[in-house]
């Protein structure tokens, strides 16, 4: 396996994403817009907003990641790049790894930077905001990897984007449940390493182990 390939593909994808019109900020914008819409729907009262902050943050992350990742394999599958790669390379793992890195840089990282701002705007206690953001950082890989797997499915389907979201939703449920409850524990001052936090971390590690091979299987099936 050559990780030079990983570096080359990640560099290409990032330079495409960050050039003018590349749209790297779409995920971040969706994240912010979702949080604002949720606040509009819930009303301006602090009594309702502050307890809802973790739920809104995780939902925003789930949807914005899902939408940001939805067409990540489409270009490579359509122009034949992925076919050539699959024929040439022993393993598609370096390629999938490059995609993970790209998603981290263009979707996950901006969300992690924006999370403390949104939490503060929702009236979360300021001294717990950084710890809550760390919870967010630990749970985000799970969401990202599930979205990546369903994006690989979408690459082989007509109108795959919506279906990818439908398939991803039930699998994201555990991350959502433990992410929200771990963040609530932190915001209410019960300490960082709650049992929920440990499970959330375990989920991220579990998905990191399980998702890449399944994604590669699906990509190879999509190429046929």
């Amino acid at each position, binding site marked *: 396996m050559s990780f030079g390939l990983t570096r080359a593909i990640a560099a290409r994808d990032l330079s495409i994403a960050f050039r003018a019109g590349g749209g790297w900020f779409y995920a971040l914008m969706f994240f912010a817009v979702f949080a604002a819409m949720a606040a509009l729907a819930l009303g301006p009262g602090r009594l309702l907003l502050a307890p809802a902050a973790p739920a809104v943050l995780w939902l925003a992350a789930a949807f914005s990641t899902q939408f940001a990742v939805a067409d990540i394999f489409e270009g490579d599958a359509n122009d034949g790049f992925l076919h050539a790669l699959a024929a040439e390379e022993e393993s598609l793992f370096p390629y999938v790894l490059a995609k993970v890195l790209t998603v981290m840089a263009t979707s996950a990282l901006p969300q992690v930077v924006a999370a403390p701002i949104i939490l503060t705007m929702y009236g979360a206690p300021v001294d717990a905001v950084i710890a809550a953001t760390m919870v967010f950082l630990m749970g985000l890989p799970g969401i990202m990897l599930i979205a990546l*797997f369903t994006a690989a*499915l979408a690459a082989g389907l007509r109108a795959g984007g919506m279906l990818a979201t439908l398939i991803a939703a039930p699998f994201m449920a555990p991350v959502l*449940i*433990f992410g929200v409850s771990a963040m609530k524990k932190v915001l209410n001052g019960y300490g960082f390493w709650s049992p929920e936090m440990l499970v959330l971390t375990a989920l991220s590690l579990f998905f990191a182990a399980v998702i890449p091979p399944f994604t590669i*299987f699906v990509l190879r*099936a*999509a190429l*046929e």
Partner: protein
Amino acid sequence: MKVITQYANPAKFEQLAKAITPFAFGVFAVACVFGLVIGLFFSPEDYQQGNSVRIMYVHVPAAWMAMFSYSFLAAMSLIAFVWRHNVADLLAKEAALPGAVFTALALFTGAVWGKPTWGAWWVWDARLTSMLVLLFVYLGYMAIWQAVEDTSKAARFARIVALIGFINIPIIKFSVDWWNTLHQPASIIRADGPTIHVSMLMPLFAMLIAYTAFFVWLTLAGVRAELMGLRAAQKAQRAPRTVSVKPATAEAPHD
């Protein structure tokens, strides 16, 4: 291993399915009538729940079968994944609809039972929620088969989705249990024996047998229909092209 590989032959499998299907239907009909009659008319009322306990005879087997069907679907997907077994693909595909219907039935009967007992049609209790999520998993799996035109490609996608779903379902169950629980604990499979009286247990088991036979019947009938469809398509392909040659009307007989 040999059992698995020999039934990869559709003709061989069809023989087996043809033999089992009427038998499964017979078991279903007998057990269903017996279970419903005993359960609905001759079993005692519950001392707390009254007559609404009878929903149990429809609800509990449905919930069991919802989970059994998914396990079956996942096992077939694993077989298909390992051996590239086309019949196993079809079995998994055809098991999805009955499984989804069992899940929906369990949710519906649960809601009907919940109204008089808990005072609400729906509560976000752990078991209800995880059954709802299971329904979504079923629907996602079925959507894969619908969305991909090429059958062999659809099969490869569907196998992987089924397997990843199978890994995730215990995790979802665990997390939803953590999230909330209100549902009564299991009262049939327990270390100290069942807590339900035999007069209620008998119709319950009859219904469980009926549901299982119904599942077998429906799944096998579905696979047989699929195989027949495949054969018809192949036959149409192999058939000599019959081009209708009409005598040109311009060439009218001379004489």
